């Protein structure tokens, strides 16, 4: 293999795995989470929901079809879900050094290096997955190095606590962004860490999409006279985003049609007085079956979340519309009287199955 760089992954519980390094020479901390999707690593790496996390891929061969850097993150077609790599570190079994794809312009290692993100490979990823499955997600530090490394020091200094950090304020846009300028009907999309494919799906449905920072309040939103509001996905624990709960509550009082996705769905739960809880090891992948209780049909969905709506304490105004077939957790809700829909999973796919794009059409109907 080309790289002589070494790497180590140290978990909070003292588990240490040595491997080879790629990407940047750096030391990063984050919550170690795994994703079972067999493709779509560029989309995952640039998904802002992974902020503060070290991403572990269960599929062993990563980077096969390279990285497409020529299509910009904000263009109509792109493998980017945001402008840059969002993960803190990347852990895989085997790194492709000779990628092959017509769209590829770079290899994975070069790409991560340019983003100053370290990667570790040549490790028993399945062992780590099973470890996380058994003991839950935990903090970890990933270090790549040329010569030596002080593992004890890494472990001692590993004080990172994912739950207590507000990642949304780090990943949200600072300024309003407008997409689909030529379209008439406007929706506001509150960016808690939005995946660009949500924007692309909305624009494809002839909407003008105003992307506003997460800290926007109801007044900021009202200015755009939107036909509806989309609450985006994003990283972190929804409990700590108190301002967002309040803003959303106001929006619902104003009877805006609302679509919540992932974190947006969890924030809606809180806005109506419900609660969320942390899953042991989250749902991250592109193969999760979800039952739509309204149609009686299942869809295979893309998921990326560590928290879930507590069904038992579900506010009385909300009803569960979608359920996860694996563990029975809440995957979707609607308001009994208002035009409010939300899903825990990712109808925008990217990566993953496109089976649930109908949700955007449902949203169009209530605008």
């Amino acid at each position, binding site marked *: 293999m080309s790289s002589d760089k070494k790497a180590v992954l140290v978990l909070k519980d003292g588990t240490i795995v040595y491997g080879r390094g790629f990407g940047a020479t750096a030391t990063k901390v984050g919550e170690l989470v795994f994703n*079972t999707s067999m493709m779509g690593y560029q989309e995952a790496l640039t998904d802002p929901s992974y902020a503060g996390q070290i991403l572990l891929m269960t599929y062993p061969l990563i980077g096969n079809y390279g990285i497409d850097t020529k299509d910009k993150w904000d263009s109509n077609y792109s*493998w980017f879900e945001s402008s840059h790599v969002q993960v803190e570190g990347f852990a895989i079994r085997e790194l492709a050094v*000779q990628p*092959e794809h017509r769209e590829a312009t770079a290899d994975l290692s070069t790409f991560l290096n340019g983003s100053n993100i370290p990667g570790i490979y040549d490790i028993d990823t399945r062992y780590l997955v099973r470890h996380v499955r058994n003991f839950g997600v935990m903090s970890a530090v990933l270090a790549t190095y040329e010569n030596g490394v002080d593992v004890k020091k890494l472990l001692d200094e590993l004080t990172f606590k994912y739950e207590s950090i507000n990642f949304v304020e780090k990943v949200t846009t600072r300024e309003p962004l407008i997409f689909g300028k030529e379209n008439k009907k406007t929706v506001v999309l509150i960016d808690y860490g939005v995946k660009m494919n949500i924007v692309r799906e909305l624009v494809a449905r002839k909407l003008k999409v105003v992307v506003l920072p997460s800290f926007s309040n109801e007044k900021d939103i009202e200015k755009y006279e939107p036909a509806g509001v989309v609450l985006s996905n994003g990283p972190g624990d929804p409990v700590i985003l108190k301002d967002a709960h309040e803003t959303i509550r106001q929006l619902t009082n104003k009877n805006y049609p609302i679509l919540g996705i992932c974190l947006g769905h969890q924030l809606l739960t809180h806005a109506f007085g419900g609660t969320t809880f942390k899953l042991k090891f989250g749902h991250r992948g592109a193969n999760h079956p979800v039952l739509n209780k309204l149609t*009686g049909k299942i869809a295979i969905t893309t998921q990326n979340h560590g928290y879930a709506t507590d069904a038992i304490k579900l506010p009385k105004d909300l009803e569960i519309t979608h359920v996860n077939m694996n563990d029975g957790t809440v995957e979707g809700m609607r308001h009994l009287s208002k035009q409010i829909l939300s899903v825990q999973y990712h109808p925008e796919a990217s990566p993953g199955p496109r089976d649930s794009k109908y949700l955007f059409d449902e949203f169009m109907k209530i605008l």
Partner: protein
Amino acid sequence: MYNEKIKKVLVIGSGPIVIGQAAEFDYSGTQACTALREEGIEVVLANSNPATIQTDLEIADRIYIEPLTAEVLEKIIERERPDSILATVGGQTGLNLSMELHERGILQKYGVKFIGTDAAAIKRGEDREAFNETMRKANVPILPGKMISDYEAAYDFAEKISYPVIVRPSYTLGGSGSGIAYNKQELKSILELAFRLSATHSALIEKCVIGWGEFEYEVVRDHDGNKAIICNMENIDPMGVHTGESIVVAPSQTLSDQDHQMLRSAALRIIEAIGVCGGCNVQFAMNQQTGDYVVIEVNPRLSRSSALASKATGYPIARVAAKIALGQKLYEIKNAITQTSAAFEPALDYVVVKIPRWPFDKFPQADRKIGTQMKSTGEVMAIGRTFEEALQKAMRSLEVKVPKFNYSEHIYPPTDLRLFAILEAFRNGVSIQEINKKTMINLWFLEKILNAVRMEKQIISQPLNRELLRQVKRAGFSDVQIAKLKNTSENEIRKLRKSFGIIPTYKIVDSCAGEFEAITPYFYSTYELENEAKPLQGKKVIVIGSGPIRIGQGIEFDYCCSHASFALREIGVKSIVINNNPETVSTDFDSSDRLYFEPLAFEDVMNIIDNEQPDGVIVQLGGQTSINLASKLAEAGVTILGTHVDGIDIAEDRERFRKLSNDLGILQPANGTATNEKEALAVANKVSYPIVVRPSYVIAGRAMEIVYDDTELKRYINEAVEVSEKRPVLIDKYLDNAIECEVDAISDGKDVFIGGIMQHIEYAGVHSGDANIVLPSLQLDEKTKKTLIEYTNKISKALGTIGFINIQYAVRNNIVYVLEANPRASRTVPYVSKAIGIPLAKIATKVLLGAKLSDFNLKSRQNNYAVKSVVFPFLKLVGSDVRLGPEMRSTGETMGIASNFEMAYYKALLAAGLKITTPGIALLSLKDEDKPYATGLAALLKKLDFKIYGTHGTIKDIEGAHSVPKIGKAEPSGHDILDLIINKKVSLVINTPTKGGRANTDGFKIRRASLEKGIPCITNVNTTFELLKALIELREKNQELEVRHIEEYWQ
């Protein structure tokens, strides 16, 4: 939540193993039957292949081992009155028969309804016009193509879309009759065969997209439209090579998520539009330079690919399809592995590689090129954590010896040796760009293959330190490979490896990439940190499987291994199966307490033994593959259950066996061994010609020939085989006109149970695997039978047999000669078991574990005649000769049972596809030795109202026969013998081949032409006599073909 109206379901199996349709349909059929019965459904199963688990009493409520024709099935329906038919688990055979029953109104007449995918959906998937229309509606691009049934229209259309074009006859199996035409002439010759093979005399002509990437999606869908993709797979060999002939990897490696989702969505639209309720395979071609794609074809049924996908993912597609057929919703069905819903898409955390296994070692004359038509008989699968690891494990699972070859002749057009040729090209410095240009194989794969060659060079040039050894083991290099490169022994590498602590870890195939806790006992090896296979608790035994289906080692051995596993469970011993064949029942993780999906090389087997520390290992059920491991395993201190390795060696070593026979006072045909040409000539002249020659230690008579003189013997020694001190050739006096018979027996060390004395219908000299066999024997007198039993007892005891033994004898002038003894289960075990109503493999397994034969009430329940017949792959293998000889060539077997021999024989042949229509013209052309039989044959033929044509030499003494000119000897205006066949003037050809194995003789052309024109061609005088007698008997007694379920045939 299922359809309450379904109470009794007819399931049709796929019949004998043929190229394109192997063990996978026993696997899917068995799984489907089990899934139906779990729901309280009564299952009626029809299959003519006795070597199937699905024809076991435990699998279905009623089992019919009868020929698979619409007429026979109608009789079964009439007797059993099923309310439903499941058309999609018996391969193309089951599907076509179901459609025939439907189209002839038989299903309607008896009120039988399709469950699962119905006739309309099948038509939308199979009928090209309907398919194309459906695809247009589903907005899925297809290739420009047209259904054609005459030549002129074909030429016009091909011109219009421009050559090359691909021809696909409709309703055929494994790409039979298909081909790629680059010009009008080629198109004409492909169409001739295509029109004949197609049930509807039509073929699709399509634009050919050679070189595009080929991808497959396995999809399930329920009646409500819930759908999931179970697996996507990528063919390493791009378009132009049939997917059954391609090296396949799962999941796809070169698709981006965008690419994959585009194809995935298209696959879902396709099965929605077709209306599949169950499993379906969708094949796409994709131009990876542009991103354009087209759907190539759809199989609206379970398939070879679905079996592969099931094994690759751990997702039991057939089981789920059967539940769907009953009306269950996808999400109501449980994923047995994770206890979550079956409505999900498996996530793999490993790489799977499948490589086909071709029979060219058996057909040296056949064209080795691979293309749109299947020629492979079986396949291997391997699992690894890297592509290189999976690929190299698969390569050693093949058990092939690569012949000396010029690599450049095998890369393009591709042959079965392409992968080996690419490796060799890389070793010789050929660039990946050059190979890519020639083959269009994706650079990603070529880079990986080149990487393996780079590692070879590292092994050669660098010291084998811990890091390098670990790295190459992680890339799948075997100890044998490393040893060869390092000029040392496997044992040395093994020792070194262990001293470094480099031992394999075992990972679970759990369908979810570790996300959920799985209880599947399904493992593969890799070199990682964590070993998930903690040794099983309690008494446990390893059963070594038989690897890929090949000629000489087919499904019969997998049947025996599966039974061993079931029997172990019955007596409370944990069963551990090692095998690498994705098509089979033995590699269903439900079949054993633990499955290791691994190569069957010593290293891989020994590693598992080290990991599990079993109480014993069973080597006598997996054919030659497993028995060949016996001595090495014993040397390594492993407990081999049953016959001691020394007994095995005596049986397999001709010299030692000759001595044993002598000591026991049992005659053998005069014989000897030779290590060079001079010795061979000396032995040959001592025993006198004709002789049978063969190399030592072979599977199924590989390279075995009957030789009549010195010249031929010299050719054989110099061309056909390698001869050396270590690899002597065996020479036996050939007993002509001797009756051959064989015995399958089980010994517990004290008693010997004889399953049956089988008689071959052909005289000795035809390989036992190719012979038609009858049980009980017809022509053996009581004294001879007593001798056979006595000899069997003597030999079993002398070899120290515990478990199975198969002994082959020849009887001439009431003298019994022993030909050979096989210290293992033979391919006739399932046939005998089903004839006598005793599960021999289970009994043998229990005996291996210490049971006594006297513990069982072993009494044959046979009350009828049972005939085993065979099917041959000649049609698929262009250039191969249609003949029987000492070398085995058949791929599969059928069984016919009836109260008299004639009917049983007729049924077995009918099941094997031999249909003789009378009256008509029979064409006779016999070799000199057979000419005396001509008048006898003629008399029988006349009774059946055949007119007799033939070459002058053959028919000169036959009254009223018509003499036909030899090939090329006709008057300019007249027809020679070949013309008569080509113009289909004759309806039966009887041609017995002369000695030698050369192509391009007149006989060869006659046989080949008959085959290609679909005219029954019989090449053995005994076969012909018995068949004609049977036909006369049936006609005179005005006998109707009757069907019975298997238990009715027993006492």
